[in-house]
């Protein structure tokens, strides 16, 4: 089995969630798969501006999503914002690839919680049947949003930050890696898109931090 889609368990807000090195979170009790910041069409947007980025990024991102859907048999897929990167990325080729991918998973309910990039880029085409909402999606005890912020009576799972942390080791080793970051009220998922970068975050003592180390998810909580 592909280790990228072998879940690592984490107990958050009293529930057992599965974290994947493929950069997603799965809630088995409701068969909901959560993915943040895919930024589809980012490569196309760059190309439109005369910067060369190979097209294969979209296919690679979707391949990972395929593997996750298959491994989890998820019934619902929720995108935590920034589905499309920019208006310029609404390239016919990219949109067609996305539509075809959607057809392969027609049985899965798909929801997009809109993020800042979605506001400029626009919603995915209607034919893709992805329900787009602005506000958080509530699934007690969780609330799924794009930007991390506290919401009353819920534990928020969000994206937007593209979180990364720095680890130090013996012999002066140093690594900067993407991570899942779970605070006391809010958790942040790593960015899912193939062509996305990292921004450093600052976990507090007691926070849960799981880093993505190639094909493994490793608990490095302080």
């Amino acid at each position: 089995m592909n280790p990228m889609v072998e879940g690592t368990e984490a107990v958050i807000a009293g529930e057992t969630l599965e974290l994947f090195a493929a950069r997603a979170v799965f809630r088995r009790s409701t068969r909901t798969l959560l993915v943040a910041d895919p930024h589809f069409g980012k490569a196309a947007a760059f190309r439109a501006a005369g910067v060369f980025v190979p097209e294969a990024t979209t296919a690679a991102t979707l391949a990972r999503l395929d593997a996750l859907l298959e491994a989890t048999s998820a019934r619902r897929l929720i995108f935590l914002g920034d589905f499309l990167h920019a208006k310029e990325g609404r390239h016919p080729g990219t949109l067609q690839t996305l539509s075809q991918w959607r057809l392969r998973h027609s049985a899965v309910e798909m929801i997009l919680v809109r993020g800042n990039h979605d506001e400029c880029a626009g919603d995915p085409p209607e034919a893709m049947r992805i329900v787009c909402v602005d506000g958080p999606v509530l699934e007690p005890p969780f609330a799924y949003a794009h930007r991390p912020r506290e919401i009353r009576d819920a534990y928020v799972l969000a994206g937007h930050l593209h979180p990364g942390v720095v680890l130090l080791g013996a012999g002066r080793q140093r690594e900067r890696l993407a991570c899942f970051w779970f605070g006391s009220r809010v958790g942040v998922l790593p960015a899912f898109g193939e062509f996305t970068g990292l921004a450093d975050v600052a976990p507090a003592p007691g926070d849960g931090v799981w880093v993505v180390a190639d094909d493994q998810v490793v608990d490095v909580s302080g």
Partner: protein
Amino acid sequence: MTKRSVTAVRDRWFKSRGWKPFDFQREVWSAYLSGESGLIHAATGTGKTLAAWWGPVVEWMTEQGSPSPSRALSIAAKLGASKPVTVTSSDSKRKARGRSAAPPLRVLWITPLRALAADTLEALLAPARDLELPWTIESRTGDTSSAARARQSRRLPTALVTTPESLSLLLTHDNAVELFGDLRAVIVDEWHELIGTKRGVQVELALARIRKLRPEARTWGLSATIGNLGQARDALLGCGAGAPMGRIVRGVEPKTVVVDALLPETIDRFPWAGHLGTQLLPKVIAAIEEGQSAIVFTNTRSQTEIWYQAILAERPDWAGSIALHHGSLERKKREWVEDQLRIGGLRCVVATSSLDLGVDFAPVDRVLQVGSPKAIARLLQRAGRSGHRPGAISRVTCVPTNALELVEIAAARDGINAGAMESRFPVERPLDVLAQHLVTVALGGGFESADLLAEVRCTHAYHGLTDAEWDWALRFVSSGGEALRAYPEYARLVVEDGRYVVRARDVARRHRLAIGTIVSDAQISVSYLHGGSLGTMEEGFIARLRAGDRFFFAGKSLEFVRVRDMKAWVRRAPNGRGAIPRWMGSRLPLSGELADKLRHRLGEAANGVFGGEEMRALEPIFEVQQEWSAIPGPGEILIERLKTREGWHLYFYPFEGRLVHEGLAALFAYRLSRLRPISFTMSSNDYGLELLSAVEPPLDEALRAGLFSPERLLEDVPASLNATEMARRQFREIARVAGLVFPGFPRSGKTARQLQASSGLFFDVFQRHDPGNLLITQAHREVLERQLERSRLGVALQRLSDSRVVLTNPPRPTPLAFGLLVDRTREKVSSETLSSRVRRMQLILERAAG
């Protein structure tokens, strides 16, 4: 005018200045007038400029008819006068009328730094004014106003002083053919500075373009004396059937050079490593006081700030007569210092290599070099700044900042006495620069593939360019990278009637804004809250500052207020106790030639021979080294093994310079890690390298298996480099030059931010999804060849494998080890999986919240 009367005028001009033309200058003039090209090499300030300038001037005068008798009289009178007549502002009307009457571009003068353009302009204007030439002579650099630039783009002045970037920008205009229609000469100044860099390649390509447009133009290069003059000439003049032969002309002989050093009273308290120490400050001040004027050269900008503050603190009475000069200072400040130096208005200037280049600085009384010069030629050049008359002695006083630098100083003197000059090797086939040039030429009138390929192959850099590489580059800038895919939305270059052109306006704008191959960290401009700009600093340093933090910059004690966009605001802080900014700029490595002399001195020390003051001062240190470990003798390689709380340290001391050591460190770590799962971090300096691991490394086993063996070098070195991040870091520069990463339009909005991506991200994406991408290949190749000096690596390894291994287990870090122990920047190599390493690592929690 007849040739005879023209040369008479020229000689009279020299006489009016109190000069007599040197033989080498006459040789250049005569060669130029016969249609030859060439390379002139000599130390700074020895008449190269006039050697290059007078050829075209004489040429023009010869082409004119006789001047009117009254005019001839007025010129002669001026030349006979005791002082040359300067053009006053009342002549500006005449100049304005003269502009359109001035001859079209005849001389193109390329200079590496815009700071030098003003100097050069002055030097060229002097004879032109005296002879009342109806020439317009102007500069065109990043500092030129847009109004002036627009005017120039329509009609260039008779002589134009410009930088490689501005020249490339000129070539993006589609009227290039008309602009260069009457060009007679291209002069490339400080060619030794450009060669060996990608800007040098940019110049090579621009010259090839100009030669194509105007084959009659001659090319002359002005250079310092380097070890590979023939190659420097070939790179300048190009190769292939149409390339001019070109002669090499040597300027005046260098003066006698004396190198001495300031020595610490006792070596005991003197640090073994590090470069910030100001222990010798009292002696430095005494040396400055010996004369009326001094330049104190340091190796980094941070060091200039530190030493400036230290000198000022010690001698507050010198405030106002000492100054600071480095590349991040505001241009006006730098110009002020340069002017003061010229008129002898400053007692002391603390400077970096920013003062190495220059047309005409009055010599100073004393030159000091803080820290090892790292190269023989550099020390020689700086020594040349001292002494008032030609033929006088040049003297430089070296100031070590740690004990071991004394060996380098002794070795540098040996090098000067032996006449060992470093070479500057031209860059071979950088595809990122080619990609940039393709867009430039497409903008500037367009091109046909076969024609441009032939033109590009005439340069030294690309004479070995393969058809596959050309095709790849062309595809990269037009339809996209991969052979089977076309990306229609990615339209940089399009083909019209068989010609490649640029049609999209924002592609053109973006390209023009981003032209240039110099790469540095994003520069933040630093200004006072209430007006007044101080200079620029690197983003990395500013990013770590918080409101209220104090630091020194531009010689001032400042308090950080805030940063917004690319500007940082500061106010004066009353009494400074603050941080000194650190700049990323390259740490100069020891040159191969100097390393050679260094090893020789060490060999002597190993045999108990300490020749000269510097080595004798070091005897106590060498005793310690001998007692705790050993001193490597000739034919020996020293390895030290040490265990501390941090882990297991292995020290190797090849004394080949930091770049070669980085390659050896990666190679040794790689070879060791093949024997068992283990992770290393490595650091290197000019003396040796350190491998650090959490568990004991299998050294004995590795030595038996051939750790130093040159066999399998071709496979192992690239493999070891793939294991480090070197290629990824080298890719930063490539991504910038090739136009992947863009510094940003001045008024960036959301759209611009959406197009920001780090070069590291591009590297990862290319590695994963476009492995055939030749820019990635180039990154690997550049690391191997330029960073690690691959041929030196092979030679060094051979020497190691022929050496006897001396393995010691010192009780604590030795003098030689110390510098490596404290080094911050570390590479890593590991044969363990990332996840198993990560499981043993700790999360940093105490970082300040954003």
